[in-house]
């Protein structure tokens, strides 16, 4: 039986309470009659033989010569790959990156290529740990390359290992990893979880420096991207494409490999999270009750540990290789095949339950800034056409939003929260008055380069990611969040959804239309 597509349910009196993710826990919530619930489609079938499919893609690339034809003895080969922010949650081993890189290395070995380096393309994200690299690439690759310094994390602050390639016609500086720029071939291995991933963004962002990134990781770009998930209306996309073409024209030979996953996101005992509530069987109810009761009894640290140990059963639905733009067009279509859900019109209120994880807190703490970014940055922007909520409408999110930060991973986030957001929540003001200080802070730079810290400027980017939503929305309410932390974000705290709907009435009036985004698994709303 083919998987059922995503759809919109209208809540009536017989609709059971909906299951919302609520950080490292769940919430059962009965929604008002008439609420529209947007459900993702069921998981697409995966490739029967992923290794064969990968080999086929490498031998039959789109608008490019087969990989073996581009490999030769004495060449300089660089393999860059997506970092720990993808996929979410992490895949069960073997990770798609491992499968692909092993295949690429096999071809390289056959061609007698000796000079191979592997780079985690993390831009300004934190460095990947050994355990994370081993999980993504496998022990064989790690042990063969890491001890000799041929597998490493990109360093966007290493002036000796960055190459300036020029400026786009819009005056954007393009500066990327020198090793990548000077290689005879740069193979980039992507995991395209959402439609924004991949394409020219892979190299132009993943291997870039702050000097380069600041041209599109800014408020103006985000406010002009409606949404950044829609490449036809995304200024973020356009900027990356200008830069990517400059990289290509500068002579950097990129062999792009993109992969798509199905949305089989949760393993046992959390498989009930994949299902529609009214289709739950007794076993699903039992699993829900058992897991939620057990989680309630655990301290936060233990709950976090359990959730971050989740390895998703999602697997490859496609793999395409070749020229960047041609590859990305095919990949995007595949992503949308899994995620697109048609929705008729906008509503006054949008509700969502935020999960425990975002791209920037893998094996870490979802701090308040990341809560905001996940809701207003990522999930709000999972649309094409129009946002699910009308301009001036209200976004209601469920998350505990603890006033808690990972001191190693997010040091500049702590200061951003204590200093910058205490001063203003206006992204334009923040960018103007504070970004430079944080971006150039030597201590943050040091931690980014030598420890496992996100770059000093990273919390700013998280806030810029919210800029479109902040401009669009009339109010943001967080249900169940730490009130002080929620207020510091500039949002309103509510203890229950019922309270939140009452508060929303002040903005959108009585009897508003409500849409609930039932994610994860992720979906892309095509709003007409």
């Amino acid at each position: 039986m083919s998987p059922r597509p995503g759809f919109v349910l209208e809540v009536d009196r017989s609709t059971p309470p909906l299951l919302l993710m609520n950080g490292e826990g769940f919430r059962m919530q009965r929604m008002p009659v008439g609420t529209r619930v947007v459900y993702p489609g069921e998981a697409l079938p995966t490739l029967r033989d992923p290794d064969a499919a990968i080999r086929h893609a490498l031998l039959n690339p789109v608008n490019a010569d087969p990989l073996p034809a581009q490999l030769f003895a004495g060449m300089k080969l660089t393999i860059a790959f997506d970092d720990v922010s993808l996929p979410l949650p992490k895949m069960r081993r073997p990770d798609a990156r491992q499968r692909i890189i092993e295949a690429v290395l096999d071809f390289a070995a056959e061609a007698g290529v000796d000079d191979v380096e592997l780079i985690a393309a993390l831009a300004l994200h934190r460095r990947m740990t050994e355990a994370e690299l081993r999980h993504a690439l496998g022990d064989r690759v790690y042990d063969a390359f890491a001890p000799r310094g041929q597998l490493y994390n990109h360093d966007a602050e290493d002036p000796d290992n960055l190459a300036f390639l020029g400026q786009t016609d819009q005056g954007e500086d393009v500066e990327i990893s020198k090793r990548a720029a000077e290689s005879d071939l740069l193979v980039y291995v992507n995991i395209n979880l959402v439609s924004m991933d991949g394409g020219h963004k892979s190299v132009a962002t993943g291997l870039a420096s702050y000097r380069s990134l600041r041209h599109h990781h800014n408020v103006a770009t985000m406010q002009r991207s409606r949404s950044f998930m829609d490449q036809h209306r995304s200024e973020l996309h356009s900027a990356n494409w200008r830069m990517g073409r400059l990289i290509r024209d500068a002579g950097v030979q990129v062999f792009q490999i993109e992969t798509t996953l199905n949305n089989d996101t949760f393993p046992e005992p959390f498989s009930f999270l994949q299902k529609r509530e009214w289709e739950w069987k007794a076993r699903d109810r039992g699993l829900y009750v058992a897991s939620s009761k057990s989680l309630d009894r655990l301290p936060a640290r233990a709950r976090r540990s359990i959730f971050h140990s989740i390895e998703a059963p999602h697997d490859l639905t496609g793999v395409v290789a070749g020229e960047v733009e041609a590859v990305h067009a095919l990949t995007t279509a595949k992503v949308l095949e899994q995620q697109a859900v048609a929705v008729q019109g906008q509503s006054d209120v949008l509700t969502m339950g935020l999960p425990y994880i975002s791209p920037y807190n893998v094996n870490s703490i979802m701090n308040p800034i990341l809560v905001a970014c996940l809701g207003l940055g990522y999930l709000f922007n999972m649309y094409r056409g129009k946002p699910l909520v009308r301009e001036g409408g209200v976004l209601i999110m469920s998350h505990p939003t603890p006033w808690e930060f990972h001191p190693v991973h997010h040091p500049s986030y702590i200061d951003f929260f204590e200093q910058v957001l205490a001063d203003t929540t206006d992204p334009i003001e923040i960018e103007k008055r504070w970004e430079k200080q944080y971006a150039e802070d030597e201590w943050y730079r040091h931690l980014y380069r030598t420890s496992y810290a996100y770059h000093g400027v990273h919390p700013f980017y998280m806030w810029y990611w919210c800029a479109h939503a902040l401009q669009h929305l009339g109010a943001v309410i967080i249900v169940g969040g730490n009130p002080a932390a929620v207020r510091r974000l500039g949002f309103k705290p509510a203890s229950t959804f019922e309270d939140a709907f009452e508060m929303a009435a002040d903005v959108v009036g009585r009897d508003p239309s409500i849409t609930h985004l039932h994610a994860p698994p992720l979906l892309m709303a095509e709003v007409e």
Partner: protein
Amino acid sequence: MKALQFQRSIPRFAAARVAGALLPGRGAEVGPLRLTDIDPPGSPGPGWHRVRPLLSGICGSDLATVDAVSSSWFEPIVSFPFVPGHEIVGQLDDGARVVVEPVLACAARDIHPVCDACQVGETQSCEHIAHGHLRPGLQTGYCADTGGGWSVALVAHESQLHPVPDELSDEQAVMVEPAACAIHAANTPTIYPGDTVVVIGAGTIGLGVIAAVHALEPDAHVIATAKYAEQRALATRLGADEVVAPGGLIRAVRRRTGSMMTGNRLASGVGVVFDCVGSADSLAQALAVTRPQGEVVLVGMAGQTTVDLTPLWQREIRLSGAYAYGTEMIDRDGKPYDERRTFDLAFELVARADLGRLVGATYPLDRYREALAHAADAGRRGTVKVAFDLRGERERDRL
């Protein structure tokens, strides 16, 4: 006359120390402080005047005395029994309002020639605070011969008296003495435009130092620590650019200075730190945020304190005390130094910064236990300065 008097009594000292350790300010209930009826102090000689207090503040050093935790350092420079109270606005017999500058230096003690310090107006460093025709006492409020502000009358030498301008309220005037302490502290180190300074503590002295630094060098960036919401608001209004919780100080200094860290410690820090608390924790914190060759100014009365001084040694940090007031050399826009009495500057600061608003609660002498308990818990109760209000004492008018 009615007065709160502090008597020498070893058992009561011990009781006060125990009670004060359990609950600060509660030394008043069992200790050597008593509300009593005593003879008014006689005039020690020519140039002395009777002062009938209107308001008399409760200072941190008073609380330490009441709870018997003051350092034994003071023993030879006080005389028993004494009437506490050195933050005084009162009236002379002719009705004129005056603020008392309480240091009992050479002039008040009728010592001629005056010591070197008094010669240059540095009365806070007077060598003769235990000599002359008065019994020992570093200040009015610690001397058996002069009386103190926690009573309906005391005597003060003309060198100690400062007339109060009509436009200054009693509440503003009672803040002149602590404001003078703050100005003297703020003027102890050299602060340049653009410098970042830290003020630890947001009680009366801490807030005063913030206001004083802001007045002396408006282009300095002031980071202050404050525990309570009211303190935070006042610190901001008085000129602090950033106000953080005590636990957030290191991070705030790091942000401001861009300092690197060595382990959990700042590799650098700020050039000037005012410790307006004087505890082991505050001093350790001050040392932790001071850059190499910087200066810590100890404004709060420290007493016996255990602190690791390794950073002071390894970073060549200067530790300066700032006690009381005298004469200040004020650098005005590169012009020659302007020599001013600290109290004159304090009158200006009190008026300009409206420090009278720091007086948050007043009590009659009869309710001294409540007053002292309130003062000891002022921050948490949203108060900065607690004072005795003598204006309603009937006996005051009969004297």
